[in-house]
């Protein structure tokens, strides 16, 4: 199979995956107790008023028609082009467009996820390599210990410790939120404050938004690095035992060249997969980190909507999340196939 056929097959396979996910979420949300219309009318409403609201929300239609309406909305290209986001229906509580809500929360999550992944990758891969290089030494044990501790430690715990140390005691960094409130957020171009402030040429805003990002990203980055340290180390140890490494050494190549150019390149593929999937999960919202740092991202949005039985909002969030995971998996698979032709066979 050529690379193009492989890519096409993989893309086509994502459609039933997403459809299955969507159907499951659609059904599960509707069998849970709690009527969204009842919930919307907090105090009282006559049965007629409730019925009218059900009609407005399309909840009076048979389930299968609701399902088809929902799918129809999702593939409405005209809506997508007009609004810049897919038609995921209207929130059952606020009556705002779910697509709009999700994509307004997304930049905060994307910014958090991206910088956290950068920190996690740098710490994880570097320490993993160093650990494998100094196999069974004190340094190796220390790094492994660090990896295990960071992997095991809850994100909210480390977050609170950081908030206490850098926020409450040292007053160096803010304890939460995206920007100092007296500073006007930069004009939204990408939605990422660090990038937008640079595009605006405002170094103060860049500095302030970086300050706000530092603690949550450092927390999440350190927590995630544990996993990367262990994966990199294990894969590096296996790779370093292979013949081509011995051959490279025998040719008198420098140890750093052997480690980074030969071994790491080969040991990196499984780590890349993990990074991809982890990044996709983070894009769905790092719920605990977002809660600890009051970060207004997708994670907090989903928790909030679940509490209100906001069917359409939860469906929308899960679909978008599913889409991220599927897309990232697709990209990782394609990268794999590109780098390792055996996969296409």
């Amino acid at each position, binding site marked *: 199979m050529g690379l193009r056929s492989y890519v096409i097959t993989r893309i086509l396979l994502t459609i039933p995956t997403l459809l299955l996910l969507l159907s499951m979420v659609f059904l599960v949300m509707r069998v849970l*107790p709690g009527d969204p219309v009842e919930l919307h009318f907090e105090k009282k409403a006559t049965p007629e008023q409730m019925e009218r609201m059900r009609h407005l929300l399309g909840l009076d239609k048979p389930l299968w028609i609701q399902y088809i309406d929902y799918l129809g909305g999702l593939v409405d290209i005209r809506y997508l082009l007009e609004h810049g986001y897919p038609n995921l229906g209207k929130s059952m509580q606020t009556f705002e467009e779910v697509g709009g809500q999700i994509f307004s929360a997304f930049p905060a999550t994307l910014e958090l996820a991206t910088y956290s992944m950068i920190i996690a990758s740098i710490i994880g891969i570097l320490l993993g390599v160093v650990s494998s290089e100094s196999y069974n030494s004190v340094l190796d044990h220390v790094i492994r210990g660090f990896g295990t501790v960071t992997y095991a430690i809850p994100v909210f715990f480390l977050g609170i410790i950081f908030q206490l140390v850098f926020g409450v005691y040292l007053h160096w960094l*803010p304890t939460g939120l995206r920007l100092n409130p007296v500073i006007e957020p930069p004009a939204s171009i990408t939605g990422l404050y660090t990038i937008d402030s640079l595009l605006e040429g405002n170094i103060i805003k860049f500095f302030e938004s970086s300050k706000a990002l530092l603690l949550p990203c450092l927390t999440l980055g350190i927590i995630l690095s544990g996993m990367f340290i262990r994966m990199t180390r294990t894969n590096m140890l296996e790779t370093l035992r292979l013949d081509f490494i011995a051959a490279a050494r025998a040719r008198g190549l420098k140890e750093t060249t052997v480690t980074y150019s030969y071994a790491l390149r080969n040991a990196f593929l499984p780590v890349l997969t993990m990074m991809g999937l982890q990044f996709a999960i983070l894009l769905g919202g790092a719920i605990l980190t977002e809660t600890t740092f*009051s970060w207004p991202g997708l994670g907090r949005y989903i928790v909030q909507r679940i*509490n209100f039985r906001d069917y359409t909002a939860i469906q929308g969030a899960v679909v978008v999340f599913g889409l991220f995971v599927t897309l990232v998996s697709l990209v990782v698979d394609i990268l794999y196939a590109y780098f390792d032709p055996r996969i296409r066979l």
Partner: protein
Amino acid sequence: MEKIELTIIVLVLIGIIVSSSTMYYTATVVGNLSTLTSDVTTLTESVANLTSTLRDLTTITGLMAETLGQYNETLAALQDRLTEIEKMLAAKTKETLIVGTTDSVEKTLDPAQAYDYFGWCILQNIAGTLVSVKPGSETGADFLPELAVSWNASEDFDVWDFNLRQGVTFADGTEFNATHVKYSFDRAIALIDDIPEGAPAGLEYDKLINSTEVLANYTVRFNLNHAFSPFLGIVSCRASAIVNPTYAPIEEVGYHAGDSRASTPVAFVGPYYLTTWARVGGRDIEIRLDKNPYYWNTTGEYPKTKTIIFRFYSGPSTLRLAVEAGDIDMAFRHISPTDVLDLEDNPSVKVWWGAGAFIQYLCFQTKRAPFDDPKVRRAVAAALDRSAVCDTVFLNLSQPLYSIIPPGMLGHTEEFQKLGDANYALTQSLLAEAGYDESNKLTFELWYESSGHYPSSADQAIVYKAALEASGVIAVTLKSADWASYKQNRDDEIMDAYVYGWYPDYVDPDDYVFLYWASWIHTNYHNATQEALYDQARATTNTTLREELYAQIDEIAAEQCSVVPLYVSSAWAVTDPRVYGIYLDITQDMRYWLIYIGE
């Protein structure tokens, strides 16, 4: 001849020698002179070079001195600028109050729709009402003139006239008058059908207000459908905010974030206007209130602080950290009881305490066994231990409640004290009459809300269960549901006993007493006598009579126990020590226009 010739030759020779010597000497002198000249020239050049070098050196030194001077000047200027910036920052801090909260506006800020604490809080600070409750009021019944300067009611309290303040303008230049009052109430009523979840629907404006009449340019009359003495409470609440018709059309409800009306100062006539309202995923991330330059009440230099910025935190612990770190000037709603007690010992913050109006109560499903029998309900009520809950769960920041009307308010009694707390003798005897004993215990499910809608619900439930089972004749199974399911269960009437809560719309016993039989609580309890007493109390302002009537209602309530009061909460706020002007009174209103940061 020979002698002469010889002499001549000698003389010539001498002449030749002398002239040669002279010439040689002259040539040597000339040569030396030339060398000397050359040396002098070199010397001159060297001197010139040296002079030039010295001059350059002087220039460089001068330049260096100049640069140093300029550097010093720059440094001094920078220091001055820094001091200036510090001053500006200090001034900016004083002009801006940063408030941290875990609240969020639920849906909109349209007075015809908003019916949540924080939405009402923002509305109160941007929108004017005819009257308001005096800050610091202990009873909630001291009304101050706002957009109305005076008022009077008919003898039967079914016709209310208000004389309006003159010279008040909306920011678009529209002058406020009686037509705006009529429009605002007509609109609230007209939208009830479309917004049954809104405050005017909840407060039944349509059933209460028959018509609103414009008697004169600055006089308005409310014709009520029935006698209603607490009407000032109604007109002081946020559902009665006066709106600008241009920005609040009668056929349209809204005022959502992003709505152009939401960021315009012209919709209301309150002390502030909403300059920023950003939401992400249906939750506030940024709210900014700026001083309304058209605000009518400038006598007290209100609002005291030019700008109020709200920051939204995800939970009590993050809010606490933010106020401790100095990220915010004030934390209001909700820092947990444990944290607030802990913060009392922290000198870098100030804790403010106040009366609470939020209550919780136990409801019984009276339409079926076992709670269709008042004896059984009384038996369970007698076994409750309110003090244990207030001590252990709320760390004494809540008080046991023995009447549905909180203490401090007109009509509060201690009627449920008759049943006692952990009064197991009474529980056992009442249950024995109903056929229950140690071998045949009364068993039921006690429900509580589990998604944080009410404070510490699970902890409360555990303490209630322990106290009830300590009677030896009751066995309780705890059940919980998140807020969505809980309300559904309430409406489906599947819960035997459930803990519920109430936060008043207006501070008056009228807004509490009806909870004993409120249909939306679904206890299926009705009592014509209590309801008649309630109507009677609504028709008089005679406080002694009202007190008597509410006492009679309470007496029946303690006998019937359809709803059993549990506790009333206290209120608290945590601020920077330099913050002043907070009134935490029974209304639970946060009047931001009175708050300021001092030295």
